């Protein structure tokens, strides 16, 4: 079993080991605040718009004072950016945030007496609590997106949460959307792709949401196996999480991968390799040798999973798939092939170091090409978060914001399918959705969204200064003419909807 333990440790290699040597000492808060004006460097505007959820008061000026390279470096090194005490306090007020997967199950999971044939009302109460825990996770995500200076990290958490989406509610996976984000996504969001892949694959939320816990082969004393393969997750892992839909995988690879992942279960720890609600049941594992993408995976139990995930993470198709998707998320729905190729090259050279892939993206000239500026439509999440940021506010309670986000068609942790909300912007330009955005902006500005002060009180001046050159003179004039509606006009304007 020593091999398995080693596998486990290598997966949880501390993030600090892959930090770049140069840590920036410069802190955003120490830079004097000044209003951005129309002469602001368009590259700075592009960087702020794409590496953050959008500027709050003073951010454009701060970034300009730092200079473009320093701003990008600071965002690539979130550890150097201190989170404000207000945010820490707001997060501390959400009790389920302090609990790991196992503790969440103990505190909020089904009572012992509610088994398969147990009290259905007790199960319903369990799901009641899961709804509340999931709402706390959504509140936390919004609070961080709005108030954390580690904006790029927050965007990457969003990116990966959708890439590894748990999909629509399924069983107790819903109880764990927050612990999945905290344990499987957040620590590796800018780390090594293999660590991220392994953490998501072994998390109980993923095992349940995608049915891999049911993927078993019953062995009766080493002979006569009864197969109950459940290849849904294996197929998703190949076609979506790693190689991509156009990858080299064949149906036989899906079957082989499913066999490799047999015996991955949810439950109490029984061995050193079992942790966080994951446990490996060797009795339910198919021990035969397998062939995945032309490579032999020797039957070694849990070690097969490590070998398979490594094969997938190191495959060039994965490098291209992930790089392209990142370029779509951060730049444009149809990114230039050269840019994607150089990102994929970095991916390969650095062993899937996500931070380095991002650095390649953000330092490429194509990233600052004028044709991409203002070329994207904000998702509802980005629209809501950027609005609140532009107002310079931190909500006292983000439940209403989370509800408004659901009303705009993007409920957090609840995308319909396993692919999550798509990273492109095309899907957010539907005719019926745009007037809803206007309506939301009006509600926000008028103070009808609970937990926030009205934007109208924040005023057109504050918003104009925060957004600077993002706003055209036409929007400024319309806002000025609109009187009390001015803030609403800005937050609903086409200029603000694009970035």
């Amino acid at each position, binding site marked *: 079993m020593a091999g398995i333990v080693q596998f486990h440790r290598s997966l949880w290699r501390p993030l600090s080991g892959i930090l770049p040597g140069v840590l920036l000492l410069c802190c955003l808060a120490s830079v004097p605040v000044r209003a951005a004006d129309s002469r602001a460097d368009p590259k700075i505007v592009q960087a702020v718009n794409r590496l953050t959820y959008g500027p709050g008061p003073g951010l454009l000026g701060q970034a300009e004072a730092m200079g473009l390279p320093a701003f990008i470096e600071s965002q690539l090194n979130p550890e150097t950016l201190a989170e404000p005490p207000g945010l820490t306090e707001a997060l501390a007020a959400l009790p389920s945030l302090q609990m790991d997967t196992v503790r969440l199950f103990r505190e909020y999971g089904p009572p012992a007496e509610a088994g398969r044939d147990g009290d259905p009302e007790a199960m319903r109460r369990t799901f009641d609590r899961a709804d509340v825990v999931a709402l706390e996770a959504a509140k936390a995500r919004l609070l961080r997106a709005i108030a954390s200076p580690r904006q790029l990290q927050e965007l990457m958490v969003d990116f990966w949460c959708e890439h590894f989406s748990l999909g629509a509610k399924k069983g107790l996976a819903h109880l764990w959307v927050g612990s999945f984000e905290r344990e499987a996504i957040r620590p590796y969001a800018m780390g090594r792709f293999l660590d991220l892949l392994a953490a998501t694959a072994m998390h109980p939320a993923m095992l349940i949401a995608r049915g891999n816990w049911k993927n078993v082969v019953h062995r009766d004393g080493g002979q006569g196996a009864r197969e109950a393969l459940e290849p849904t997750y294996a197929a998703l892992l190949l076609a979506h999480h790693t190689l991509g839909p156009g990858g080299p995988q064949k149906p036989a690879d899906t079957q082989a991968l499913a066999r490799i992942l047999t015996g991955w279960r949810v439950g109490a720890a029984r061995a050193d390799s079992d942790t966080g609600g994951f446990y490996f049941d060797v009795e339910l594992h198919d021990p035969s040798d397998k062939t995945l993408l032309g490579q032999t995976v020797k039957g070694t139990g849990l070690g097969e999973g490590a070998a398979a995930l490594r094969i997938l993470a190191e495959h060039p198709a994965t490098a291209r798939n992930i790089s392209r998707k990142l370029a779509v998320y951060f730049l444009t729905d149809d990114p230039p092939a050269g840019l994607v190729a150089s990102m994929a090259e970095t991916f390969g050279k650095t062993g899937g170091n996500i931070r380095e892939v991002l650095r390649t993206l953000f330092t490429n000239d194509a990233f600052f090409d004028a044709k991409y500026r203002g070329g994207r439509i904000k998702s509802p999440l980005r629209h809501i978060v950027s609005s609140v940021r532009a107002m310079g506010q931190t909500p006292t309670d983000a439940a209403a914001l989370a509800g*408004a986000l659901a009303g705009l068609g993007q409920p957090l942790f609840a995308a319909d399918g396993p692919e999550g909300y798509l990273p492109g912007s095309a899907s957010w330009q539907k*005719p019926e959705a745009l007037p809803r955005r206007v309506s939301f902006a009006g*509600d926000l500005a008028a103070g*009808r969204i609970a937990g926030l002060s009205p934007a109208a009180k924040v005023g057109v001046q504050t918003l104009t200064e925060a957004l600077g050159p993002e706003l055209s003179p036409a929007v400024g004039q319309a806002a000025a*003419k609109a009187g009390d509606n001015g803030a609403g006009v800005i937050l609903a304007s086409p200029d603000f909807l694009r970035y």
Partner: protein
Amino acid sequence: MSAQTREYGRVGGKVRRRDVLRWLAGIGALGLVPGPALARKAGRSSGEGKAEAGGKGRETAAKAPWRTGKQLVVVLLQGGPDGLSVAAPVADPLYPFLRPTTALPADCGGVDLGSGFLLHPALSALAPLFAKKQLAVIPACAMPGQGTSHGPALAQFAAGTPTAQGKRSQSGWLGRLALALAGERSQMLVACQSDAYDGAPHYTMIAPGRGESLPGLPVEDQALFAAVGRLYGETGGALGKAFAAGREDRQEVLAKLLEESRRAAGGAIPAPHFAEFGQHFGRELAKRRDAALGFVSVGGFDTHSGQGAAKGYLADRLRETGQGLAGMLAGLGQAAEDTVIVALGEFGRSARENAFGGTDNGLGGVMLVLGGPVVGGRIYGEWPGLAGHRLAGGRDVAVATDWRDVIAPIAVRHLGLPEKKVGDVFPGFAPVSAPPGIVG
């Protein structure tokens, strides 16, 4: 779990059906009749009460069973009032999530109803009644199996059975109740047309007269849309076109909703007028103690857009309704001690607010029961909760209390309706007979 959540979960568990039974038993205890138990089985042992003078063993009463002077007034709040605003579940963490712009804040000044609920502050006219324990509030109320279109739902309400799918039935439940109570001698005081009292032998209609009419539902901020629309027009391209198309569709939908809400108020007294009319109706009721029953319908609760929260359109309608109901008791004067008023809608509204700052037609609504004989001062009935899997069809507050389970015992214990005749009033309906503790 936060302190608030824990509190909610704890008290939520207390509100059980057995409390309804206990409370209904209370109504009987206050009256003259030694209250027979609600359940049919139990009814055999305790006799049918002295008001039913036919004597034991004789099924056809020679004398009407109605306890003279006792009254029941039904106030139909037409259009489907929003239960989540009348009795707001402010302790439920999902409430602001489902209602980003229409949830009542916990500190809005409404009366604490207990069990994590808050009475809308605009209903402050009813607050003294709650304090005097003459007002009971029942959330998540409707008739199980009914629909959520106004026409069919009003027909089902009138028939007192969910099977009347939009068809006009031969008689209404109030009509049948009038017959069952006093036959040819029974009287009824009504102020609006309704199929609910079809079949009643006599009724007197008090014309509500002319008064304030219903203001139209508020629509979204047209100035904002006009200003923004110009900007999207100037932008042009795919974005400009998408916006224009979306705006046009949205206005069509909104126009339909506004037309629906206008029709949903048809035949009812506009809520602004009811604020005064309620007292007048109460005075007439006080003069007409030969009337066992009363009926009024109030319009203006189909809040598809611009509903508002602590203030706004719905708050104004609730204020007028509260004034009308309190006024009715005031108009009744001493007779209020013998009168029970129930106010309810044909249904409730969707748990999640819609894209127009309003709510859509939904199932579980709210019922208010007030008057001297009421053992109030608290919430009654089960509360199904707002978690996604608890909502009916994933969108509406589930129905936890059948309004007939509230009306039937009032008719039996307060008015004197023989228990065996409940089935005549509500065909196919079996009252809750679960002994306390069995439903949890």
